[in-house]
């Protein structure tokens, strides 16, 4: 039997499946603003906002940070200046270029509504869009997409999660898919057809299989072909085990994300995770553990821009974390779990070159519970602003289904270019 590549199978084989295959899934749907692209990057582990975007102009900064303090702009290893008070970590050269090009907004003293210090509950709140951990089992981004889909009366994938599974922020009623590169050989069409039939009585697996094939159809033509190899005895690549000091590789993730987003018929929203921000010990300053992570992230974002090409002009990237870290260095040259932190909005569609912060200061009496940067901006204000101006999510949806009970977090306006 002739073995079709999966994408050919999708185009040629849909009819052959006697209608069991969901042909409507082959195209991705579009939001209210069909050109807009949104990337949401979850920084898991609690990013140290005082290191990523140091307030070097605050007179208490250097004393609290001690050996972790970054030097003023101009000195070796010094911060990259933004507005004379805030800077960027010296590893973030692309973000700094973006700021200069007015494509980056830095938010500071920002936090989700979560006020405890558990990573896992903090990430749950960051993703579920409520003010309580585990209050709902769906994510704000999915619910935002659902509000757009319901207006269109169709069910196609608006979003893709880069990874095997779908993070909470993208789970929910709207149809989304996940994609990650495969080292395994593709299935032949006959086997695939039989498995599709086998799942006919299983709604979950049937939907997942359909979503996977739709995503593969896009990715096959977008991403570079992966090497197929036999599986059981497939040798572990030499680089696959973590090695000290090796920066995380975002390149593959970011290329895949761009491959989806730059297509006219692709999804408009992509999410992926970054990890390694939980810097309890030996965090480093201009160099060291955190610096290495930031270098990799910065390079990944630069690659994202390059790979998106013209679509960058229509793109907004949001980077957010579950909470910040202690204002002071701890006993092991790191920082423990804190409260407010920094967040970033980046992209060609962004009205950037600004730091938005209602700065509470770092003096002893202005710290939250005497130890953390005090939150003065609700992260949901940023997310609401982006969703409403960029994806044209209605304000009624934002206030009811997307971020319930968030009236106090008023959307920040004019984050996007008009």
């Amino acid at each position: 039997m002739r073995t079709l590549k999966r994408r050919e199978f999708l185009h040629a084989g849909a009819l052959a499946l006697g209608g069991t295959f969901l042909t409507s899934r082959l195209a991705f749907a579009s939001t209210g603003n069909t050109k807009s692209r949104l990337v949401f990057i979850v920084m898991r582990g609690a990013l140290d906002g005082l290191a990523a975007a140091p307030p070097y102009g605050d007179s208490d900064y250097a004393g609290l940070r001690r050996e972790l303090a970054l030097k003023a702009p101009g000195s070796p290893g010094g911060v990259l200046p933004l507005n004379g008070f805030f800077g960027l970590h010296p590893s973030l050269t692309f973000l700094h270029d973006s700021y200069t090009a007015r494509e980056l907004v830095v938010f500071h003293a920002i936090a989700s509504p979560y006020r405890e210090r558990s990573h896992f509950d903090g990430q749950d709140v960051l993703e579920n869009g409520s003010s309580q951990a585990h209050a709902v089992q769906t994510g704000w981004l999915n619910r935002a997409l659902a509000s757009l889909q319901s207006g269109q009366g169709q069910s196609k994938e608006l979003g893709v999660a880069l990874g095997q599974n779908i993070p909470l922020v993208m789970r929910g009623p709207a149809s989304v898919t996940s994609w990650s590169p495969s080292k395994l050989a593709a299935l032949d069409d006959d086997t695939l057809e039989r498995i599709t039939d086998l799942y006919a009585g299983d709604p979950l697996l049937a939907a997942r299989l359909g979503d996977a094939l739709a995503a593969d159809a896009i990715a096959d033509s977008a991403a570079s072909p992966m090497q197929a190899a036999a599986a059981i005895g497939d040798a572990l690549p030499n680089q696959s085990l973590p090695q000290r000091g090796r920066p995380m590789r975002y390149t593959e993730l970011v290329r895949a994300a761009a491959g989806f987003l730059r297509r006219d018929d692709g999804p408009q929203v992509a999410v992926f995770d970054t990890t390694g921000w939980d810097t309890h010990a030996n965090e480093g300053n201009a160099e060291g553990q955190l610096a290495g992570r930031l270098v990799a992230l910065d390079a990944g974002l630069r690659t994202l821009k390059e790979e998106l090409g013209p679509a960058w002009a229509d793109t907004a990237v949001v980077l957010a974390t579950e909470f910040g870290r202690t204002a002071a260095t701890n006993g092991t040259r790191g920082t423990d779990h804190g409260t407010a932190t920094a967040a970033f909005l980046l992209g060609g569609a962004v009205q950037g070159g600004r730091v938005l912060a209602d700065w509470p200061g770092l003096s002893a009496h202005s710290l939250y519970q005497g130890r953390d940067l005090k939150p003065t901006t609700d992260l949901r204000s940023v997310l609401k602003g982006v969703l409403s101006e960029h994806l044209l999510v209605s304000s009624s949806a934002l206030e009811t289904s997307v971020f319930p009970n968030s009236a106090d977090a008023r959307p920040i306006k004019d984050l996007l270019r008009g």
Partner: protein
Amino acid sequence: MLERPSPAVAANRFGLGARPGELAQIGSQPRDWLRAQLAGAPPLVADSELRSSAETLARALDARRELRAAKRAAAAERTSQSSDTADAPNQANALAALTKVGQIYRPVYIAEASARFRQAASTDRPFVERLTYFWTNHFAVSIDKNIVLGLAGSLEREAIRPNVLGRFSDMLLAVERHPAMLLYLDNHMSVGPHSKAARLLGRRQSGRRVGINENLARETLELHTLGVHGGYTQADVTTFAEVITGWSIGGDVGRFPRGEPGEFLFRPELHEPGAKVVLGKRYADTGYDQGVAVLRDLAANTATAHFIATKLARHFIADDPPARAVERIANAFLSSDGHLPTVYRALIETPESWTQPLSKYKTPNDYIVSTFRGLELPVDAGRSPLAPFEVMGQRTYSPGSPAGWPDRGADWDGASALIKRIEWADAVGQRVGSRRDAVALAPQLLGDSLTPATRTAIARAASTSQAVTLLLSSPEFMRR
């Protein structure tokens, strides 16, 4: 709803998937089959390649010392010579020493992970193995921190396995003093602000702050015992962190080299002196024993019992576990003083464990192991058997955070994850299909959960290898 406990539920939900003949062996009393596995000493992993955590750590500490010495020599060489010193002997030595540190952990990890896999594929006490996995995941460390690569397997063998049929409080203590946990959550260098070490370092005026690191204390309260809503405060976290200052490791790992390299060592000079109040109770300063006393109380706390009962019920029964089952398990925990076999018996005795078959989506680990058991595939030597775990997104000992792998279907049933599972199933089918009879195997592996649709699809497959692919891809093989 099932009338009586099913052998297939016993083998798949509480075990690691049936091997051919296992369902017949379980017979009409699945609960007895499970209870019998709880009797006797817990099975250990016997493999001559495996080393203790202390031995691995001691080797790593030696290599690190050599590296530092080599670096110093190389630096001296650079300053004393001109720029053309590319082949200077000391710089070559530094490079060799660096490579050596990196080489220590990797073979240890591969040996540990494949020994674990081999045990899972062949054990006739799969329930105990599943419980071991449960606890390893409860007390999770992750190899994305480099040093854990060399220690994660030994944490399971030295702290989890010996206690899996014992008392929770003993397991808790064994884990919190294990070098893997102390290093993973940074406690080995946490210093009491009023300790002797702090005074000494303060006099030296190095400009560095010395003090506590609250990572292990927080995760012990949040993840290992009470749970995040267990009623502790930030002050409890901070004070408990002070209580366990000094819980460290021997050898040259901190600022004061001494003790047996790689072994647990209480370092009194790092310990924060004084009585301390945790969760409203005062603990006198008894040094190391102060921490033990707090851990014993945490292990006996009602919140801990409910937290563990909920996790057990979620893991074995359903994503949203039935409240009655949770209550029953928690009561067994409290009334037995955390005697784990009593807790497990409550789990298998509660009717809810048997009434919702296939309610759990298999994790990649469950899926791979059940495939190897069902098809009686050999776990070869070396690292190649570990590849599918990585391909399917659950590389052994790499949950990525101290919270461990997530335990709900939505965390694992992504579209891309499903297609990888099917692609791998297909590769397995092509590899061994000509030597397996899926038509005969299906009822042996799935028992009464095998649906007519799957039975028919396998029977009508175009080839024996496709039949295996369809068996492994079937909805009932994806779940347990």
